[in-house]
């Protein structure tokens, strides 16, 4: 048998049309889970209520091992039928939406609209619904399926929940699947190098306002941004500096005493990632030395580049499954949960469930129709792993 022949995978792909029909029939269950879970605010470091609700769902569905661990992760296990592997599905339970925002969702026949619905309430709702789907289609996996809603994942959380689970969990994880709400067709198997940080600028209270030069924290921060923009980045390995967010100031006529830039360095090269970070540190020192303002650099999250090969059976199988849905796989490196699996040397992929719009806005939305394909893709990938189609020879 050549590496390209895979009868287990072929059999799984044959089942996909049936899986799509089965998932269509549980539409209300999934949408209800999505609305109920998604309407519970879950900003990073405050995911307790959403996790508690998820655990209730797991318990109602008869999962034998449900628990909340020391860092707040919600965990449920679908017991295998004797297999010795543990296949882990993870969806980050936190969102970027503050608790004060109205979290109510609207459901129409075409889409679900609400803050954080795509990133990543849908992922968590999929975890809550999966045991129900397995029961409905009569699927009893050979190996254990561990469902984890990871906490403290975004921003300063730096994947703390997932990293804790992978370092301390009693069930060694054999494969990982990161479930993201969007987009269907997404397939990530590599993580790029990443450094994430804040640059803050403060003006001392006894500032001499008559002094020539920059007269606000915003202007000083602007100087920093201009200098970062001037950093020459090579075409290969691919690298970039993402200016994610700036904040500062209170009104039209008040001099700004505090401003903050949130940025992320991305690169295929770990060395280059560090070089860019060194250069940004020099810039902050240089700007500070010219003024009486304080400019501080705080790097709080790091990812090392890595991942499994394009030819790894897990990637190959997932790719074929996505193609069989009539969807073109979109291969892109990830800086999210995948990195935690990569750091532990665990083969893993990130996949998306459906299409989304207005990401990050209060009216963020997901499209319902592609969800069935997205779920079929996920179940087929689990079946492929469970059936041994993703083993390295």
């Amino acid at each position, binding site marked *: 048998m050549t590496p390209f022949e895979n009868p287990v995978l072929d059999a799984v792909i044959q089942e996909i049309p049936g899986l799509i029909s089965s998932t269509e029939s549980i539409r*209300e269950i999934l949408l209800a889970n999505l609305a109920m879970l998604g309407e519970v605010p879950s900003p990073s470091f405050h995911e307790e209520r959403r996790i508690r609700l998820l655990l209730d769902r797991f318990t109602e569905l008869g999962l034998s091992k449900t628990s909340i661990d020391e860092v707040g992760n919600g965990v449920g296990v679908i017991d295998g039928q004797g297999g010795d592997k543990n296949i882990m599905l993870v969806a980050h339970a936190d969102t970027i939406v503050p608790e004060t925002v*109205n979290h109510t969702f609207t459901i129409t026949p075409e889409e679900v609209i609400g803050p954080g619905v795509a990133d990543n309430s849908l992922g968590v709702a999929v975890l809550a619904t999966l045991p129900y789907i397995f029961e409905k289609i009569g699927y009893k996996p050979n190996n254990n399926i561990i469902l984890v809603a990871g906490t403290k994942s975004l921003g300063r959380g730096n994947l703390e929940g997932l990293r804790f689970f992978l370092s301390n969990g009693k069930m060694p994880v054999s494969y990982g699947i990161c479930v993201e709400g969007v987009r269907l067709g997404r397939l990530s198997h590599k993580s790029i190098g990443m450094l994430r940080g804040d640059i803050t600028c403060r003006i001392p209270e006894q500032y001499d306002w008559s002094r020539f030069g920059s007269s606000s924290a915003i202007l000083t921060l602007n100087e920093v941004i201009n200098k970062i923009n001037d950093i020459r980045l090579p075409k290969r390995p691919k690298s970039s500096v993402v200016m994610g967010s700036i904040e500062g100031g209170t009104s039209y006529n008040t001099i700004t005493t505090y401003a903050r830039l949130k940025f992320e360095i991305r690169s295929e090269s770990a060395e280059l990632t560090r070089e860019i970070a060194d250069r940004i540190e020099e810039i902050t020192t240089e700007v500070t030395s010219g003024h009486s303002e304080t400019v501080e650099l705080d790097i709080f999250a790091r990812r090392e580049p890595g991942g499994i090969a394009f030819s790894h059976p897990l990637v190959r199988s997932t790719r074929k499954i996505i193609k069989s849905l009539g969807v073109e796989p979109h291969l892109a490196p990830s800086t999210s949960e995948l990195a935690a699996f990569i750091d532990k040397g665990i083969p893993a992929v990130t996949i998306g469930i459906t299409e989304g719009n207005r990401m990050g806005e209060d009216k963020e939305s997901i499209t319902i129709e592609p969800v069935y394909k997205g779920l079929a893709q996920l179940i087929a990938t689990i079946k492929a792993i469970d059936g041994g189609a993703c083993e390295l020879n």
Partner: protein
Amino acid sequence: MVEEKERQGLTISLCLPTLNEETTIGKEVVLFRSELMSRYPLLDEIAVIDSGSTDKTIEIAQSFGADTYLADDILPHLEKKKGKGENLWKSIYQLKGDIIVYVDADIKNIHPRFAYGLIGPLIYRPEVKYVKGFYDRPLTLSNVTRPSGGGRVTEILTRPLFSLFFPELTAIIQPLSGEYAVRRGVLEEIAFPIGYGVETSHLLDVYGKYGMEAFAQCDLDQRIHDNKSTRDLGKMSFGILQTFLTRGKEMGILDLHKDYETIFRQFQAVKSEYDVVEHHITEDERPPMNTIPEYRKKYNLDG
């Protein structure tokens, strides 16, 4: 609760009265069907009774599996009337449940508790006939939710009236809430104002027939919905007051020496001009359903 419901052989219907509720109806149907039909079979039917929506309310409700009816198509030979009370009254004929649960269709933070919380006392306490929901009513201001305000007609009209004439009924925390569950035997015996006064009239009639023992209340936590304008609340109050006066007279508590007017006048200012706006509001009533021949026949009331 489902086991006890089945042991008693009860059937339960959920009625969602609608008029242009396309933004909220989808989630209501999805949540109730998923949680209280598929997962836990507490409800035997979910029905939307519509007053003639011009938006996609009916289409959306149907697409998520609710039974949908146009109020005018139920008992079609009767004179057509428009109003939420009309939908509630006709649901008694159309729906099959021994218990009917009414939930307004404009609730943004809908949750299965809005139904099962109201049903519970009727299943476990045979003496209870009418369960009313109450909640903290936050106003929705832009995208920030704050837990105060709301229930203005309750506080400035209904509660003072009850305090004056029916002090026992002041124990009902949200007398105007649109969420309640009632036994069929009670619903078929009481008249229904077709408009704003339906909830007030229910309380007065059930209290008059069965006393306070018939009532239970359930804390539904929070209810988020769009807030009505003060002008709309004025019209609502006018209708409720009509119902109250009618019932007060029938019950011998009020002695009215003339019929009340049915035109409600409000002012609207345009620059420096003040225009009078007149609303003709009549709290028309439907008689008890058990006086309608088709109902008596359908439910075999004459043996």
